[in-house]
Every structure is written in structure tokens, then in C-alpha cells.
């Protein structure tokens, strides 16, 4: 069961690093990054809840929870402007239909095994 949590926790640092990098671009003012940040925060919260409710040994659980906490703090620290709006709508982002923040978030979808307990 711990493999499920470990694998998911391997994805978050990659996502967070990318989001942090994009927060230095115009994405800082964008609802795309705002949404991705929220999703990451919530995903980590849910992972923590699932972990607490799991039957993993206490020590292992604590170690994983500490990682989740560290990642949550990192997510919280992602810099965002107070009033975000879609930068495509605002005419500032012209990369096409894609979105860096949502693309970064999608990295988590690469983790497909093991299935959720």
C-alpha cells in the first residue's frame, strides 16, 4: 500500500517545481496557475487524509505525512497575484490552446500504478 503513496509523492515535486517556475512568468496573474495550485493543495490534503486512514505502520505513515506537509508548504508558497484572470482572455498569453500550469498538473496523471487502495 505504501507504494501507492510513494509513487504519488514522486510526482508532486516535479509538478510543484514547474508551477513555481511558471509563477515567475505571466502565469502569476493567471487563473490557470491559481487553479493548478488549488488542485495540488487539495490533492495533497486528500492524500494526507487517505494516508491517515490507511493501515500503514506508524513510522512509515509519519515519514510520508512529513513529506506531504513539506510539499503542501511548498505549494502554499507558490507566488500568485491577488486578482487572477485568464491571461489568454487578457490577451497576454498567446501560446495556443495549451496552458503551462495545467500541463504541469497533468504530470500527476502519469502515475497510474498501483491503483488507489
Amino acid at each position, binding site marked *: 500500500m505504501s*507504494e501507492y503513496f510513494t*509513487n504519488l509523492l*514522486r*510526482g508532486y*515535486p*516535479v*509538478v*510543484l*517545481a*514547474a*508551477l*513555481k*517556475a*511558471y*509563477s*515567475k*512568468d*505571466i502565469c*502569476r496573474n493567471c*487563473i490557470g496557475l491559481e*487553479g493548478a495550485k*488549488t*488542485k495540488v493543495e*487539495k490533492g495533497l490534503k*486528500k492524500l494526507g*487524509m487517505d494516508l491517515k486512514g490507511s493501515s500503514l505502520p506508524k513510522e512509515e505513515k509519519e515519514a510520508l505525512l512529513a513529506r506531504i506537509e513539506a510539499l503542501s508548504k511548498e505549494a502554499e508558497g507558490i*507566488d500568485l*497575484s491577488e486578482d487572477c484572470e*485568464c491571461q*489568454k*482572455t487578457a*490577451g*497576454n*498569453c*498567446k*501560446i*495556443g*490552446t*495549451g*496552458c*503551462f500550469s495545467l*500541463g*504541469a498538473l*497533468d*504530470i500527476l*496523471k*502519469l*502515475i*497510474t*500504478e*498501483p491503483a488507489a487502495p
Partner: protein
Amino acid sequence: MSAVELLNIRGSCCLETAGVRQHLEDLMPGNTLKIFFDPPLRQNMENLAAEENCEILHLADEGESLTTTIRKKASTTKMLKVSPVADYPTEEGCFLRGNHYSPLAVVVLLNAPYGTMPPEVKSIPSEVDKLVRSAIETGAALSGTLQTENIGIEKVVCNIVGNPNIRYIVLCGVDVEGHHTGDAVRALVENGINERRTIVGSTAVTPYLLNVPRKAIERFRKQVRLINLIGEMNPEVISKAVWSCYQEKPTPFLNYMLSDPGAYPEKPISCRLSWRVKQPESIEKWELEDLVKGIEGEEKAASISRKKEVMIKVSEPEVAAIASHLSRIAEELSQIAKILLGEAEAKAIALVKEAPVMEEAKPVCVVKEEAPAVVAPAVAELTEEELYFHNQLRAYPGVLAGLSACDKDICHNGLSLPVAVNSIIKKLSKLRKDIEASSISEQRRAEFLARIDGFLEAAERLPTEPGPCQKTLGNCTIGKGCLATGAADLLKQVTEPASLTKSRR
């Protein structure tokens, strides 16, 4: 043929006591009453006929008495109309206001990708705009667009319950892709919400109504009847629906029988969105229960405190004391205001005096307090070719940060990370060559090349020597996906301008 009744009240001194009023009241529309009466009552008879919505068809003097034939006019049903709440419509939105005594509101579904419209929805599609306008012109109380299955519907609820005259919602337009907002409205009217404040039986993704009181939602459902025209884009059909809704007599429209039933017989509810949940679309199902508990707890507490406020009794001497305190506060506030106004005026004068000097010294510029670390050029200033390079370069910080994160994991000794890094280095080198060969301005070229140098430096710090695949070794068990490849794939988010060759054309 209408019936004629006869009434002889000769000798009576008063129409009321002779029962004329009662007869006129009971008279069926279109029926006539022939009355024989004495001449002194003529004026009273005329007045009474008018009061009772009757018309005098014939009045003849027959010597000592008068004869009149009175007909009841066509039915003018007494229809109750009431005033909406003072701040109606309580919620802002993309809608037009019509006559607030009208019994219907028109909701046009706005099928545009969420977030593509500016807040004031300047670029509303013309066919949607036509529907909205034709509904108002035909007589709707409110007519506007609806896009989201949560906040959008909540705004509709607030504006409807604030006006009890609105008894119908005409729902039209193409349903919103991905949101299924039209279906959510249908389900809300039909089934309401459950204990998790989720619309029952809706196919929408996040049909959560978390910002309006439950009682407003229940009232909305009782107050209105839905005229479901989802998919209908013909303004004539919508106008017909609107017209049918305000008819006094039942009027068939498609499968509906419509008429104005008058105002909903309860007081209007003034409510606004609480904005406790600003982004319901990001709510996960597992969060809902706790969230709803919190919201309903707050609602209960608020209602108790409101009740308590009502219970406070203040004696007359206390009222006098409070009034005297308030007047003192008002005086002090007015003095503060005078001081501030004086200062403001003085500052304004100083600014006017300084203005020409300031204009010469500094061009006007707006600097955000927390500017992003990388100050990107405004895309409007870029040529198509420059935009191509600019967009490509925007992807790399995230890619390299993602790859660096992989480097701290088992990917460090693996195969995919170095492969991804080498590919990134190649792409950056190619981009460098393209920039060097381009016809962009020297300033931009230098700016772009400096950024590429920085990226290459970062990329070269990452592993470039392929090791064994960590999946093959059994160390990486995440499935078929690969985190390093995923990070590198962020480059694929950039699809415009299509290619350098095209951008050069």
C-alpha cells in the same frame, strides 16, 4: 346571446340598500342588467356602474322614472403584483432589465468555453445577444446569459427570489459544453438539492450551490415554473414563449399552457451570494460534506443572531442617550471630514503646481508592486517571429525546473532523464540558431539569446549520460508514464504561432 336581468328599485332612496351594487358585482362579464329607478339616483347609478367595471349601454327618461341597461365589461381579473426587494436585482450579471411586473425571466445558455469571455462579456455571440434582447423587447422582467452550473445559477436564484412577480423561467440556447448548465437548471427546478447542496439528477460536473441560503433555493423552486427550451435559438419562438407567459387567459405554447398567475404569495427574499466558496469548480466531492456542515452552521448562527437582535428592547431614556452619542459622533466625523478635505484640497493644489515639472521629469508608467521575476515583453509589441521565440522560451523554465526535480529522485540514475535533458539541449541549440538567423531586432535577439544561455547552463547541470531504465530495474513503479518525459512534454503546450517558417511569412 348574453342574458338580461331586470331590477326594479323604484321608490328606493339608495342604490346600496336596494342591492344594486350586489347585482352588479354578481353580473357575469358580457351580461346586462336592466334597472328601473328614480331620477334623483341617476348620478349615483353612473358612479356605481363605473366602480363595478360596468358600462351604461342605455339610459332613458320615462317620465317619473329612469330605465338603464348596464353591461358588465370583460373580465379584468384582479392580479396581484408586488414590488421587488429594494436592491433588486441583487446580483450583477450579464443581463438586461425589463418591466419588473412581468411574470418571467429568460435565461439564455452561453455555450462558450468558460473563462474566454471578459467579465463584462463584450464579445457575446450575436445570436445569443439577439435572444436576450428579443426577450426583453417582448416583455421579460430579466433576460440574460448563464454559463456556469454553480455561481451562475446562484445568481439567477438570488435575482428571481427578489421579485415574486417572476413566475416563469424560459430556458433557451445551446447547453454549455462541459458544464451542462441547462440540465442543471432543469434538475434544480425538478428535484432541488440534496444534503450536500448538490443539484439532484444533474449531469453537470460541479452543480454545487454553496453560496445562497437553502431557503432561497427552496423558494426559487416553488416560485417559478420552467419553460424548457434548451437548444432553441430562434428569437421568434422565445418571443412567443414570453408573450404567452404574460397572457391573462391560459394560452397554449408548445406543450405548455401559460398565463400570468400573479405574484408569488409570499414576501420577496433579498439575498446575495455569500462568496464563501469562490471556485466551486475546484471543490472535490470528498470535501463537500465538511464544507456544507460549516456553511450550514454559519447560516444557523447568523439566523439565531438575527433573532436575538430583534429581541433587544431599548427603553426611551436609553434611546435618548444613544441619539445624543450618535449626534456627537456625527459632529466629530464631520470635523474629521473637513480636515481631510482641507488636506486633500491642499495636496491637489500642490500637485497641480508640480504637474508640468513631473511630466517632464518622468514618463507615466505603472509598476506593479510585485512584478514577476521575469519581466516578459508585452506580446502586442512583438512581431510574429518574435512571438514565436518568446512563446517557445516561456515553456523552458517549467521544463527545466521539472527535470531538476526529477534529478533529485531515482530518475537521476535512470535513462529517461538524460534523454530528456539531451533533447532539451538540442532544442535550445536549434532555437539559438534560429534566433541568430532571424530578422528580429538586435535588442530582442540579445534578450532571447541571454535567456537561452541561462537555460542551457541549467540544462547542462543535469545528467546527460544515460543510465539503466529505472522501470526495467524495478525501481520505478508508477506505470507506463515517465515523469522526466512528462516534464519535457511541457514544451508541447506551445502551439502558436504554428511554426517559425509560417511566422516568417
